[in-house]
């Protein structure tokens, strides 16, 4: 009996009181329930970790075909003879051993599949470019052509062929995904994203940090009760509403003030995204400021410093790691913001550092183009690649904010 009891109590981590004999029977049943409940709860708790892993896996999985031929590309890239190599690789990546020795066949499956892909865009130019080639070779090997139109694998083969040029154009300056010769110059998008992030941070960070300083150090209780709920309300604003406001009101207003020519530009978008980032920066900064021990404050005041001197030279420096974290998470928010970028930035992928020009951000590109893209196409993969870029970037930002900054903050506050 005692042995049994021991086993049972160890199951519930020994936090139960040793039961008396007569209720033991009824409790036995409950303990099975207890055991199951704990296991289920534990299992569900791992869900959030699982989701992150799944996101990693599935976003990268869809982006992966881009790198399929990456090793083979390096050789032909140095050599030229582009047309030839494309044909061979189209055939090789088809994975079809019959096609392999015959270069022409490979080319057929290649071009026709390509045509299929581009037709869906409503792009006619391709047909005009090589109608002869297509027609002649179609007659030669109609079996393979039929195959390429019907099965996924072959069109994926053509996708990998496109990938060669896709990877090459990745660092070019142009983002022209839908054309006869698609160019995926992510660089323009990255620069656009950084530009808009910078603008929105320059607007939001000082505002939010100063406001947080006011709330934490100077405000009386009544002001606090106005400011904090207001910020929470702002945090609850759907980004599409902020985007709408920026598009309809802010853009016109700012254009009237600054007299620039493009109505929707990175400046308008940056300000709007700044509005969206204010609550995050404010909340985390305020948390960091209030986490500074009261003794810091008292010591500083006792030494004869005034209230603002204490706030600026004692409290603020003590909370810098927290503020740093706030800014990092603000960057993360702006970086991934889609709806505002779609609505208020003009969406032209220009490589231009002028803040009054249109930009296209990474997230907006995904949002705008994913709906129209052909599944399994190179363009589709590139969009997922951009998605993984965004994901990795925000993940790293969050990790830095989480581990490095918080550790530092704790050390500093505890005076180590």
């Amino acid at each position, binding site marked *: 009996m005692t042995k049994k009891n021991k086993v049972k109590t160890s199951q519930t981590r020994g936090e139960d009181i040793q039961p008396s004999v007569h209720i033991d029977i009824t409790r036995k049943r409950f303990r099975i329930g207890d055991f199951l409940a704990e296991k289920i709860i534990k299992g569900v708790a791992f869900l959030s970790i699982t*989701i992150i892993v799944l996101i990693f896996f599935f976003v990268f999985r869809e982006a992966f075909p881009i790198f399929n031929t990456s090793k083979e590309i390096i050789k032909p890239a140095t050599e030229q003879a582009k047309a030839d190599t494309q044909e061979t690789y189209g055939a090789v990546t088809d994975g079809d051993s019959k096609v392999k020795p015959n270069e022409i066949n490979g080319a057929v499956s290649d071009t026709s599949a390509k045509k299929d892909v581009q037709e869906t865009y409503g792009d006619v130019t391709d047909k005009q470019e090589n109608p002869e080639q297509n027609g002649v070779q179609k007659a030669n090997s109609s079996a393979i052509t039929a195959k390429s139109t019907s099965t996924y694998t072959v069109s994926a083969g053509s996708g990998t062929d496109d990938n060669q040029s896709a990877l090459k154009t990745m660092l070019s300056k142009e983002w022209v995904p839908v054309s006869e010769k698609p160019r995926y110059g992510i660089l323009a998008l990255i620069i656009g994203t950084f530009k808009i992030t910078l603008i929105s941070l320059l607007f939001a960070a000082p505002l939010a940090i100063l406001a947080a300083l006011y709330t934490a150090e100077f405000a009386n209780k009544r002001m606090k009760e106005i400011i904090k709920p*207001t910020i929470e309300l702002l945090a609850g604003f759907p980004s599409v509403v902020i985007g709408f406001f920026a598009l309809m009101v802010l853009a016109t207003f700012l254009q009237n003030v600054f007299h620039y020519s493009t109505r929707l530009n990175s400046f308008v978008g940056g300000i709007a995204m700044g509005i969206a980032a204010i609550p995050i920066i404010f909340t985390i900064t305020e948390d960091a400021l209030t986490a500074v021990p009261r003794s810091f404050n008292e010591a500083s005041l006792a030494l004869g410093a005034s209230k603002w001197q204490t706030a600026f030279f004692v409290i603020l420096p003590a909370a810098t790691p927290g503020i740093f974290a706030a800014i990092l998470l603000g960057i993360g928010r702006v970086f991934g913001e889609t709806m505002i970028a779609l609505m208020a930035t003009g969406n032209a992928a220009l490589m231009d550092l002028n803040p009054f020009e249109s930009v296209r951000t990474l997230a907006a590109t995904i949002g705008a183009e994913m709906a129209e893209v052909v599944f399994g196409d190179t363009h589709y993969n590139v969009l997922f690649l951009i998605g993984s870029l965004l994901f990795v970037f925000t993940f790293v930002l969050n990790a830095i904010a989480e581990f490095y900054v918080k550790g530092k903050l704790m050390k500093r506050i505890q005076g180590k």
Partner: protein
Amino acid sequence: MINSFKKNIKGIVIEGITLVSALLIIAIVIIMLLVIFIGGKDTLSWEFLTSFPTEGMTKGGIFPALYGTALLVIIMSIAAVPFGTITAIYLTEYAKENSIIAKTIRFAVRTLAVIPSIIYGLFGLGFFIKFVGAHIDGAFFGGELRWGQPNLLWASLTMSLLTLPVVIVSVEESLKTVPQDLRAASLALGATKWQTIRKVVLPGSISGIMTGTILAVSRGAGEVAPILFTGAAYYLATLPGLSDQFMVLGYHIYVLTTQSANVDQTLPIQFGTTCVLLLLTFVLNMTAVILRYRIRKKKNR
């Protein structure tokens, strides 16, 4: 004397700057609210809320969008709230505060909260539609395209992933407000741990679960990016079922302002829809804020 006076002026100026930034933020919020409410108040009517769009979406109401939004948040809550609550229970009741598992889960939850919403959209597309849906089609419908395409179910599930951390954080906060004494008393009376959680801890934190649900609903109603390509539709003549695409308020705004050919003509509808969406999230958030302040008061007491 003069020195301290100078110091004072400097202090007032600096304090003033911080005050001005705080006021500026409040002003931005008020201006946004006012502009949208004033712009939308003429359009708002019972008819606007309950009728279908007519004449190529240039006239008529937003009923299908409201209906779609309601379905979306309901299915989303059914998925997100139980899982979020259970995770929060694990974190507060079962896990040891500094164990590696608890730390990892907390980190995962915070990461989920900062991942851009468009990534959830991509994930929904890659996982739910192209993987789960396509496999269901292959297994049960003989390859016929039924679940392997954007629809309400996948969009709701995608949205539930996005709102999961919202639920977890607010439930966890409220679970912590249940006094340790109550737990100890329950255990001392002979209740098991699970009984204690079910009969003592959960009833004490019901307001927290409600706050979490409300916040999640408000977030889910407003987000557009995750459903851009997992189920939102431009226009539908009928009300959607689980395997159909659907109309949503947020997407409706986006479509009307940027994709529509006659933007000026639909301006009243745009303002009206934005106003409805803003009112919806505004009321929900207000309720959540009030509930949360009550919880915090309870904690401090």
